[in-house]
């Protein structure tokens, strides 16, 4: 069986999901994910639909175990996990596969992701501030590589955070008309 490993970093889970489904349509099915590294196995094109979810609680919690067994019962396979993220797939033959089928729960998931990204953003902002203070003290105003990296990460993560926050806003305004 053909295998390929692709290295990529996504901060936007919906883009990542789209990419995984494009790969699946080409016959490359994700079988394992770990920080920035995707392992695909070749199979029948379009055999699976992929979804990515941020669990509300840690994977080991009773609530998550309940949920994961519900997923298994409904034909959903947990392909890989990373922190509180789960990579899920279901055979396309079983029909459309959506985890969230009403506005309320979709908003809830987006808000969970925004919360998760905000924690990372806050940590990055703190390290940027610390780096600026220390480089100021040592007198070297030369561009510090670690500071550059932190700032780049800040910008990269801010983009999907803002996008998702806007999406929450749009969905909430729809709620006035539709369920």
């Amino acid at each position, binding site marked *: 069986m053909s295998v390929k490993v692709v290295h990529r970093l996504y901060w936007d889970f919906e883009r990542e999901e789209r990419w995984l489904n494009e790969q699946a349509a080409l016959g490359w099915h994700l079988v394992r994910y770990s920080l920035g590294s995707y392992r695909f196995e070749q199979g029948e094109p379009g055999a699976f639909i992929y979804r990515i979810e941020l669990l509300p609680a840690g994977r080991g919690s009773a609530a998550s175990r309940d949920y994961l067994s*519900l997923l298994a019962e409904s034909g*959903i396979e947990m392909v890989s996990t990373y922190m509180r993220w789960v990579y899920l797939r279901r055979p396309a033959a079983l029909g459309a596969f959506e*985890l969230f*089928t009403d506005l*309320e*729960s979709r908003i809830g998931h987006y808000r969970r992701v925004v919360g998760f990204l905000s924690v990372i953003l806050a940590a990055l902002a703190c390290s940027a501030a610390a780096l600026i203070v220390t480089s100021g003290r040592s007198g070297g105003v030369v561009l510090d590589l670690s500071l550059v990296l932190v700032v780049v990460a800040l910008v990269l993560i801010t983009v999907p955070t803002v996008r998702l926050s806007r999406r929450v806003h749009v969905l909430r305004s729809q709620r006035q008309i539709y369920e």
Partner: protein
Amino acid sequence: MGANGSRPLTETIFYVLLALGEPLHGYGIMQQVNALTNGRVPLGAGTLYGALTNLTEKGWIRPLGGGGDERRKEYVITEAGRTVIAAELERLEELVRNGRRLVKEGEA
């Protein structure tokens, strides 16, 4: 808002409550809702799980204990849940009555 809530229920919540007229576990609820609506109301696992948590907190459904199989928890509607459904039916009947009147006027 009254104890049973005078706000309209979402379709998802309404059908989850209806499905739990008999004890069912999560996947059973998905199948039952699918059968009741001929697949018109899709019910995703993430949405269902959130609904079960919320409805249990509200006391409209309750988990059945002691099935032995902890990983397939069954739920059933409570008296409070039945009251909510009854109130919702009254609301829906009013909607239908008033809606019909308008449609008939248009035809006349």
